């Protein structure tokens, strides 16, 4: 069956080689050719000078702001509330420091390696040190002739890189060494995040798709998974599966917390966690709907799906916990919300409203298993369930996207950039196989890079604080402060 599936999809892929431009819409953010107005506009093109779309600029800037809000303070609070009070500052500090470091690296080389043309796996060096990134540079969106300031695209994408790296720290909270986190972040960002972003999101922009022939040429320049036709609207693979695998590897490498499985390692402030989850939800509207890069119907669809899938996951988790454990917990509901958000991420602008409800409900249930049965089976102390929620939810979301994007299930199908309309064909099994490939590539790349990075950290700055420091709490031991006083 598997091989059938594979054959089928490969066949499909080869047979349709001439229309590989039938790609997801918006597969995700495509950074386009830099359009330096003052630059060399090719003489033969009599195209009008591309001009900036103000409403889309507002939309992408507001979305960038929302995505930043997701990390600071959203994720920080979500995680911070789940640790014991003696470690809350350490988790806030890790989130903040990782955010700041990645922001800087993004400007120095990250953006260039992810979003300029290079090979199928990594971009080029055109934008290193923010070269050419000024107020006049434009970036394409998913519609021909519609541009936004490249800086808006830069910061929207930068915010994604920041949250992806910050997500990881939840897996080895309460015992990891601060310097270790920082070193790991630099390595993982460079060798796992940037290639994934390039592979999934880079393509030469819709203006290049003028004919089937040109589309083939353009597709050849795109990232590896983009070219294969993997659907990932807002970053399920790049952000969630990627980070979750890193977290899981980290949880294994750093080892279990002292007292794990014996003492009660309880969340110190669930109100805080709930606020964090709420802010994540709110910010996620920017994450998902902003990924349309335009304020259009697709953005509205992504927004609505982010509303509905999350609600469905909250209800699913709550109902199942109520049935199985007798009590519906707030932490469960909040975790369900995050699970739903993770699930809908790759699908946001691609599935219909009923599909979103289904995806939310299914993933809510799966992640409940992810933090329970699966976690016990994995035997890793993934402190804040990064894998259980983002990994399980991300994988489920990636695969279900392949299902519910099908037009007959209310989905948007595949977008044909040449004809500028949805392609009439949709092969569900083939797409599912492509989706699975996306998942496998992510797991393999992130797993390998993470493992190597943690080994490097271990034998250089070290991975874990000593037992006394862990007992005293990282806040005092590592950061010299206490979160709470009179």
């Amino acid at each position, binding site marked *: 069956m598997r091989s059938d599936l594979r054959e089928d999809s490969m066949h499909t892929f080869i047979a349709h080689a001439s229309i590989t431009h039938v790609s997801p819409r918006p597969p995700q953010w495509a950074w386009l050719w830099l359009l330096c107005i003052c630059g060399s506009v090719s003489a033969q093109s009599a195209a009008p000078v591309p001009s900036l779309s103000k409403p889309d600029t507002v939309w992408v800037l507001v979305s960038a702001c929302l995505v930043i809000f997701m990390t600071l303070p959203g994720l920080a609070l979500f995680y911070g509330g789940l640790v014991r009070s003696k470690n809350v500052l350490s988790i806030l500090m890790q989130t903040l420091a990782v955010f700041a470091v990645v922001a800087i690296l993004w400007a120095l080389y990250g953006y260039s390696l992810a979003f300029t043309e290079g090979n199928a796996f990594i971009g080029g060096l055109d934008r290193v040190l923010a070269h050419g990134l000024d107020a006049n540079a434009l970036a394409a969106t998913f519609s021909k002739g519609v541009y936004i300031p490249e800086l808006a695209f830069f910061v929207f994408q930068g915010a994604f890189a920041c949250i992806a790296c910050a997500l990881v720290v939840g897996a080895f909270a309460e015992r990891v060494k601060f310097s270790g986190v920082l070193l790991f972040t630099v390595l993982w960002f460079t060798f796992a995040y940037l290639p994934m972003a390039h592979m999934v999101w880079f393509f030469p922009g819709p203006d290049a798709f003028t004919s089937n022939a040109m589309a083939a040429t353009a597709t050849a320049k795109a990232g590896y998974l983009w070219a294969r036709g993997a659907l990932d609207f807002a970053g399920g693979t790049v952000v969630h599966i990627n980070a979750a695998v890193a977290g899981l590897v980290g949880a294994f490498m750093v080892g279990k917390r002292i007292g794990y499985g014996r003492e*009660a*390692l*309880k*969340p110190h402030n669930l109100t805080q966690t709930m606020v964090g989850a709420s802010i994540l939800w709110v910010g996620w509207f920017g994450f998902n709907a902003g990924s349309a890069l335009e304020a259009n119907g697709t953005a509205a669809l992504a927004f609505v799906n982010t509303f509905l899938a999350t609600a469905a996951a909250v209800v699913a988790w709550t109902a199942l*916990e109520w049935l199985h454990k007798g009590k519906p917990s707030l*932490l*469960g509901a909040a975790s369900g919300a995050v699970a739903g958000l993770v699930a809908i991420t790759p699908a946001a602008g691609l599935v219909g409203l009923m599909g979103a409800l289904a995806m939310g409900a299914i993933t809510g249930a799966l992640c409940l298993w992810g*933090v*329970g049965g699966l976690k016990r089976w994995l035997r890793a102390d993934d402190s804040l369930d990064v894998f*259980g929620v983002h990994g399980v939810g991300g994988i489920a979301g990636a695969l279900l996207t392949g299902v519910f994007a099908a037009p007959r299930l209310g989905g948007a199908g595949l977008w044909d950039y040449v004809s500028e309309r949805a392609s009439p064909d949709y092969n569900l099994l083939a797409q599912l196989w492509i989706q699975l490939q996306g998942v496998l590539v992510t797991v393999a790349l992130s797993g390998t890079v993470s493992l190597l990075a943690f080994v490097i950290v271990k034998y250089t700055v070290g991975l874990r604080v000593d037992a006394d420091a862990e007992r005293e709490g990282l806040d005092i031991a590592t950061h010299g402060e206490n979160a709470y006083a009179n």
Partner: protein
Amino acid sequence: MKLITAIIRPFKLDDVREALTDAGVSGITVTEVKGFGRQKGHTELYRGAEYQVDFLPKLKIECAVDNAAFDAALEAIMSAAATGKVGDGKVFVIGLEQATRIRTGEIGTDAL
């Protein structure tokens, strides 16, 4: 003089304080504590992790009384704090060698 230490249910504080005031006790000191005893606790569930919590919130009330007032005070606590269900708590009595009021330096019964 005696030092009465009572472990009671939190929601009984106001009743006990009033009863003690009626019994002529002029001051008490209250501490939030966690108690472990016959009363059974509850289970808490945080995602996959289930914890049995045996410690329950209680209040510890300390009051120093002179011997004359002792019986009334004890009786006041006993009746005000009781619900009849497991977990009502205990009263411990300890002999007090000396009591002093910091403000005035008064000693003994006068200090209370």
